[in-house]
């Protein structure tokens, strides 16, 4: 009888193994996106949502960016994945990220550096050039108008 009880207990305990949580570490599988403002400040700890190309209405994953403004998700397939970062203060972004199928590395070969998609890097020189471009356009618009009206009005004023 005791033996039967022991066997029964051993058999009944087996399904409990299904509750054990395992983990798997895979490098280079996730897509990382960094959200930052035009002056380089990260959108830290901001809520984000990611939508797959096949189910654009149902969030694939939600969460918060880290302190550096990074978020990451593991795409289930290639395509244009929609990433939304939504700060309560009305800041944020809504972009589509191309999740290309990962390149298969040969066994033992060193992992290739992940590709950097434009828009994922630091602001760099563009941070300085774009305001100058904007100022240039404003200057051009007003100077052109001013000169055009003066020309139409005839003699320039002293």
């Amino acid at each position: 009888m005791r033996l039967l009880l022991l066997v029964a207990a051993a058999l009944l305990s087996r399904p409990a193994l299904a509750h054990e949580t395992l983990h798997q570490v895979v490098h280079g599988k996730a897509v990382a996106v960094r959200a930052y403002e035009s002056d380089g400040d990260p959108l830290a700890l901001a809520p984000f949502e990611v939508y797959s190309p096949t189910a654009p209405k149902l969030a694939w994953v939600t969460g918060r960016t880290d302190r550096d403004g990074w978020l990451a998700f593991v795409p289930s397939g290639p395509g244009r994945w929609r990433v939304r970062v939504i700060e309560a203060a009305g800041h944020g972004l809504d972009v589509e990220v191309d999740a290309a199928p990962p390149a298969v590395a040969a066994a033992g070969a060193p992992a290739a550096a992940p590709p950097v998609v434009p828009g994922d890097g630091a602001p760099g020189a563009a941070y300085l050039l774009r305001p100058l471009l904007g100022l240039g356009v404003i200057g051009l618009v007003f100077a052109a108008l001013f000169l055009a009206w003066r020309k139409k009005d005839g003699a320039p004023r002293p």
Partner: protein
Amino acid sequence: MHLPDGFLSPQLSLPALAVAVPLAAWGARRTFGREAAESLPVLGTLTALAFVIQTIMIPVPGGTSTHLTGVTLLALLFGPLAAFTCEALVLLLQALFFGAGGVTALGVNALAMGLLGPLAGWLAWRVLRRLSERLALFAAGWLSTQVATLAVVGALALQHRLDPLIFPVEPAVTLAAMLAPSLALAGVVEGLYTVFAHALVRRANLRGVEAC
């Protein structure tokens, strides 16, 4: 304060654009027309200044940031319509070159920051200037910031009501997150900037400022 693309549905962004575009066209006709040619150098300089000011982010505790608009000064010197037209140009360039504010949200952004805010500031200045010019200028800058912020909050709250999937943040949270830095920081600095810059422009006695 610049709403990006994707935060507003076409239900809101299209009517706002339908109001803002003709208004900007009318404003451009009046502000940039031949009669206003004398004002164009000063107007252009102050528009460029507003463009620069809006790119300077003031960090706010909690991870976000705020900024001045510099548009109230334009409203006081040249009228609210001129301020709206210039701000619409600034916002268009920011959307195109910076991604600061979305192209689809341009109408809402322009109406909030370019029209409602400066108009409120201009009205406050008209009422209060009899008491004290400096107080009126400060109040104009401060109030302009609050009204612009409330207008943006209102648009986001309306969007949340229409479709929470597009803007999921509760209106009360948006209000607190946006209004706190606006009341405590951005509005005060905008008020000080308006007082300081207005005094400088007046002292410089620039040609074209009185013409409008």
